[in-house]
């Protein structure tokens, strides 16, 4: 805004803002809060069940897949997408349809692939589902959100519309697949026993590894491809991105494609981890998703990843002391705590 005040910023390097976004800038406040957090974790370590941490990391990787898409959409399109959880649920049901309704007709059936409870069909369904939900997200944008953006509608109107989309998707899912509990064809499998009373279900290992691969892919895409750079630029400053010749239309499409695909995979993985599908499962997942996004700072995918892991581990660890059905409330409490202490997220500036 003001050339005098921006001068020192330029001397400090033009990428200061970027470094702040990815959380490399170390301020005394941040160092002390990291230290405090570290000490807190160290102090609690003797009382912590390591098995719960492992469960938390598995849950956290599912949250991360959803939260990265949510934070990209939030940052680039300025839309807090209340339908994101329902994109996840829709993805899970599309995969269920493929596994249960389509693949058996061409003779592909089965459960209990290797150490996993689910079968080969789920692996085939995963990319197809990601494609379907990504396309669906782009179509919904063209039908609804693009018109609202063209009209320069406020964020509240956009969010309200996304709430309507969420309700409509859930109604549609219930209408087609009924509100009853479903599940992928599965066979029970042994869990891996590790020392210190750690038990890892093989499915959880699959979830975590797939999440790591996808997150690495998103990282590479955002860091090295032209489109990824354009997306980050648009997230930073949409007007500047537009005048510097970035094709914002394509950026919007790619954002929805990535967000939708990740949400679909997250939904399928959630259904695998929970061993069931319910139409409400996506809506119930919204609070952990938003908690991770806010914890990491809105628009910051790397922050969302860290935030998701923190939220996931905290949710699982809390079951050691309080009723497990309070897990979403724990995510909510974390979110409120962050809003009080560091509203821009743990990697953002102090208030």
């Amino acid at each position, binding site marked *: 805004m003001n050339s005098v005040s921006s001068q020192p910023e330029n001397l400090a390097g033009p990428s200061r803002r970027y470094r702040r976004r990815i959380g490399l800038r170390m301020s005394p406040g941040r160092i002390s809060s990291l230290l405090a957090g570290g000490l807190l974790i160290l102090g609690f370590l003797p009382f912590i069940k390591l098995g719960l941490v492992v469960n938390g990391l598995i849950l956290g990787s599912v949250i991360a897949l959803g939260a990265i898409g949510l934070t990209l959409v939030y940052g680039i399109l300025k839309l807090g997408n209340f339908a994101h959880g329902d994109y996840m649920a829709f993805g899970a049901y599309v995969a269920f349809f493929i596994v249960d309704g389509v693949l058996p007709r061409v003779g592909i059936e089965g459960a209990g692939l290797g150490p996993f409870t689910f079968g080969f069909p789920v692996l085939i369904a995963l990319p197809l589902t990601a494609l379907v939900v990504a396309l669906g997200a782009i179509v919904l944008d063209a039908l609804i959100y693009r018109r609202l953006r063209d009209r320069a509608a*406020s964020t509240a109107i956009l969010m309200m519309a996304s709430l309507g989309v969420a309700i409509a998707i*859930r109604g549609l899912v219930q209408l087609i697949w*009924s509100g009853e509990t479903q599940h992928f064809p599965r066979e029970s499998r042994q869990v891996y026993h590790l020392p210190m009373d750690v038990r890892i279900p093989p499915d959880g290992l699959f979830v975590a590894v797939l999440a790591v691969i996808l997150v690495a892919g998103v990282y590479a895409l955002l860091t090295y491809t032209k489109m990824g750079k354009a997306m980050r630029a648009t997230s930073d400053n949409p007007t500047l991105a537009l005048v510097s010749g970035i094709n914002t239309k394509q950026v919007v499409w790619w954002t929805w494609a990535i967000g939708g695909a990740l949400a679909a995979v997250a939904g399928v993985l959630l259904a695998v981890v929970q061993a069931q599908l319910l139409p409400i499962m996506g809506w119930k997942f919204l609070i952990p998703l938003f908690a991770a996004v806010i914890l990491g700072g809105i628009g910051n995918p790397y922050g969302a990843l860290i935030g998701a892991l923190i939220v996931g581990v905290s949710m699982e660890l809390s079951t050691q002391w309080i009723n497990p059905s309070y897990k979403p409330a724990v995510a909510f409490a974390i979110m409120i705590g962050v809003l009080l202490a560091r509203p821009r997220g743990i990697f953002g500036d102090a208030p």
Partner: protein
Amino acid sequence: MDISGVIDYLIGFAIMAMIYAIFTLGLNVHWGFTGLFNIGIAGFFALGAYTAALLTSPPPDPKQFEDFIFGGNLAQHGFLDLGIDLWFFVGIAAAAAVCGIVALIIGTITLRLNDDYLSIATLGIAESVRFFFLNEKWAANGSKGLYRIPKFMGELVAPENYDYLYVVVVLIVLAILFVAVQRAARSPWGRVLRAIREDEVTTAASGKNVFHFKLQSFVFGAMIMGIGGALFAHHVRFLSPLTFDPLLATFVIWAMLMVGGSGNNLGAVLGAFVVWGIWAGTQFLPGIFSDPSFRLFMIGVLIVAIMLWRPGGLLGEWRRIIERRPASATGREPAGPD
């Protein structure tokens, strides 16, 4: 067809529609006037209903497999015994107070931040309230729910005539709240709220403390919702955490306000009747139309459609002519918290 059965049905319908109208008025204060995006109405709904129910219900009967420890039945202590039970009014006032306090806490945390944080926080509150009443059996009997909630001044009339009394009670409360909200909206206070909705920065620049006004509006609307919850408790007289699912306790109310026109109190009341009429009426239709999932789908489509084509609601805000003229001259969108 039995004519008295029809009348009874219509009375029951009117009670529910008017209770929903109270919620729609509360939401109108939030969204219609101030542009506060509250999608956790269910939380205030549940808090109000449970507060009023626990204050007036009889204490738990150990023979009935009840787990809760509250259940004051304050009426039995003879306090303020004037022939009619004033404790019902205490219950309603307490419901409003509890919702107001919760709104104050949430508002203080989130209203200083961006608009979107409030919506996420209200969503979290609604879910947390539900988890609380579901899991803390000592508070309100958990998933088995609270029953034997007394009738509001039920000793005045014969049990079969209770609905005739209650429809008048709800009508009076709705009328009082309507006048209160209408006056508040027309007052300078209401003008500031609308100014905040239209342009926060300009309002702040004219010396108004935007945060304080938003907080007042949020607390005021939440208290109205608490009163609605209390009236609901004395009407259905059975509460369980499942009563307060987001569909019937949040989204329907949003649809009502959207249909009626945000910023328009009369429209809000009208919208409550229209949407509740459609909702209640479609259950008699054959096939897919009475399917709850289809109705859920249609509510979502309705909200999206209104956001796309009439963001101010179907009726829209009634502006004075002096306000309307420049708006149409510049081709601005009619009335909407844009």
